[in-house]
């Protein structure tokens, strides 16, 4: 089984960074884009989701986070987007402090200027149903940056054209297929020129035949060197797009490394168990 | 505001108010008995495949839902005796008018509930060899009753409030007693406030019950 996976992964190579000769620790030595330190997060005293998670991501990397449900993958991405409070720990972005836990009752401190440089696409459809596709794209640039309507619309149309969705500019989200909705959601996030994209299981709500069109869009972004952090259950996609794979379970990073190593020669027993379960369908 | 409240004059009227409340509650219970049972039958009829049955029943429902309750009550009082040459006592007449009004509203609640019974349940009933009648009694009715319950109770308190309208045709309910007390004591503010509080004291807990049921359902369906 693992053999066939390796064939798939070699089918495509990326220009952005060469992941194969980069060890996980090597990525921390350069300019780190994201540095997550000792992250703790609980939803209630009894439900601890992140238990001291550490993670470093270099600029130009495409990190794929895999692991069992409830292992903290999606929570990590939500914290990264500034959607969740944390208990302790910190995240820096391009050397700047981004998210810091405040001791005591005060809320988590989020550097909003940094947050604006991060874009996210969710598992559930989050297009605004009362706005047209183009309006969905232009709302944030106009309201957040004060961009003119004409300029935002021109950029929006260019993006839609690139994604093959120009004909849908005036349509409402309910007139689109699931795959189209997720592609628009990606375009909407790109309108703000993010320095990092977060993809949280963006294809898991889709019908199987619609998955590929969304994954292709993400692939094309990868080819252009967009740094991204991806949570996915699609191991084929994980192997193809990752420059580094992070196996996350029990609220910590259990193992990380290049896709070849994680999928073909995992070092940890838990990683092996997880992959065995995933591939023995 | 310089008005000073004085509830002392009302004491003489407590007995009559209690009598009135009794009539109001009786009207409510009797109308609900009609509404809950007849409502289900009407719901089944309006879903009938035979248009000769469906159309008049639909007209009945829509007519009661789309006209003011007060005209239904007045109509019953003045027209039924003339048209059918029957002279029923006024409380019975009130119960009939309110009961049929509630029947129309409850029929809609039942219809929505029946339509929410998953198709698989019908299929399972057929697969188990139940007759159409058995399927209605053992599968559809329990399911529909359960899912219609919050609306049935809400409609039930709605009718409790609508009973106040029968005061207009001189049935001696709480509203009627209150109005006469207000006139005899010259204390309308105290009297009407007291009456309103009594109505509220009955409907509010029931409305809370409905919310409780709905909240528990929400949790259960999660």
């Amino acid at each position, binding site marked *: 089984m693992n053999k066939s996976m390796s064939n798939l992964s070699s089918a495509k190579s990326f220009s952005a960074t060469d992941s194969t000769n980069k060890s996980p620790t090597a990525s921390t030595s350069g300019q780190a884009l994201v540095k997550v330190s000792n992250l703790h997060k609980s939803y209630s005293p009894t439900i601890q989701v992140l238990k001291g998670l550490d993670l470093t991501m270099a600029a130009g990397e495409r990190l794929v986070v895999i692991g069992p449900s409830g292992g903290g993958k999606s929570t990590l991405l939500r914290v990264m987007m500034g959607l969740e409070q944390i208990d302790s720990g910190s995240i820096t972005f391009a050397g700047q402090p981004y998210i810091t836990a405040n001791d005591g009752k005060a809320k988590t401190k989020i550097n909003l200027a940094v947050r*604006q440089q991060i874009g996210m696409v969710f598992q559930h459809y989050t297009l605004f149903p009362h706005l047209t596709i183009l309006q969905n794209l232009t709302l944030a640039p106009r309201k*957040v940056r004060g961009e003119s309507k004409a300029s935002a619309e021109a950029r929006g149309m260019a993006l839609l054209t690139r994604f093959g969705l120009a004909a849908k500019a005036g349509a409402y989200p*309910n007139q689109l297929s699931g795959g189209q909705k997720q592609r628009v*959601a990606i375009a909407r996030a790109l309108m*703000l020129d993010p320095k990092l994209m977060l993809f949280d299981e963006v294809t898991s709500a889709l019908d199987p035949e619609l998955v590929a069109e969304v994954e292709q869009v993400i692939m094309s972004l990868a080819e252009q060197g967009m740094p991204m952090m991806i949570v996915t259950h699609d191991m084929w996609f994980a192997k193809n797009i990752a420059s580094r794979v992070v196996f996350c379970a029990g609220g910590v990073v259990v193992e990380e490394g290049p896709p070849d190593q994680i999928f073909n020669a995992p070092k940890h027993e838990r990683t092996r168990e997880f992959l065995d379960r995933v591939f023995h369908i | 505001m310089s008005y000073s409240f004085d509830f002392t004059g009302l004491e003489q009227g407590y007995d009559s108010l209690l009598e009135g409340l009794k009539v109001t509650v009786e009207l409510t219970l009797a109308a609900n008995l009609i509404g809950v049972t007849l409502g289900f039958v009407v719901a089944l009829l309006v879903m009938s495949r035979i248009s000769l049955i469906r159309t008049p029943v639909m007209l009945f429902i829509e007519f009661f839902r789309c006209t003011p*309750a007060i005209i239904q009550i007045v109509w019953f009082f*003045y027209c039924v005796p003339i048209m059918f040459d029957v002279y029923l006592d006024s409380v019975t007449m009130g119960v009939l008018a309110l009961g049929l009004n509630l029947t129309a509203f409850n029929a809609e609640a039942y219809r929505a509930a029946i339509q929410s019974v998953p198709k698989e349940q019908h299929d399972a009933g057929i697969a188990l060899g139940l007759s159409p009648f058995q399927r209605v009694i053992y599968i559809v009715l329990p399911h529909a009753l359960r899912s219609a319950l919050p609306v049935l109770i809400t409609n039930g308190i709605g009718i409790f409030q609508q009973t106040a309208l029968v005061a207009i045709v001189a049935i001696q309910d709480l509203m009627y007693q209150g109005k006469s007390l207000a006139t005899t004591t010259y204390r*309308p503010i105290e009297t009407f*406030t007291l009456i309103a509080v009594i109505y509220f004291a009955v409907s*509010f807990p029931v409305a809370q019950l409905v919310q409780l049921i709905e909240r528990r359902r929400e949790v259960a369906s999660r």
Partner: protein
Amino acid sequence: MTYDFAVVLGYWEALLQGLEVTVELTLLCAALGSALGFVTSLARVSPVRFLRWISTLYVEFFRGTPVLIQLFWFFFCLPIILGSDISNFIAATVTLTLYTGAITSETFRASLKSIRPEEIDACIALGLPRLTQITNIVLPQALLRAIPTLLSNFVSLFKESALVSAVGMADLMFVGQNISSNIAKPVEVLTVVAVIYFVVAFPLTRAVTVIERKMLAKLAI
């Protein structure tokens, strides 16, 4: 027993005038009441405890008591409190506006709650300021979603407005009852009055269903 419905035709002008009063009162109270209802729905989710408390009390009390007693209260008590006479039109408008405010506030509250939390996540991810989230995402959707239920609230108001006849306001119900007792033909007159109410209300309830379906389709995701 034969009925002579033609006799009602002779009074069509009076009935029409009554209908006009009913419709005007309904429209006025629908406008004032839904504005009040909207403000009330916001007060009910306000962080200020006092606002939540007072708005809840108002809504529960007006939903928990018969409209007839509300009407009598304002008709008989307001003049005493104000120390001056008020017309039955004022009493009717105040009562039906407060009644509509109470029921529509529940409509608005439900529609505000129906905004999916995922969309708020998306707003944050896009960095939309709080004010933009409210004015561009929450409010437009809440108002759109409220439309069908609001319309059916207005139909209820239209029907409840018949109560103002009890304080002598010359609406359709009042005019109908007057004619009915004057010419001693209750079956014909009252039936016609009921049919007039039906003819106005029924198409509106159908419209509610149609709009609801359209709205659900439009705002579906």
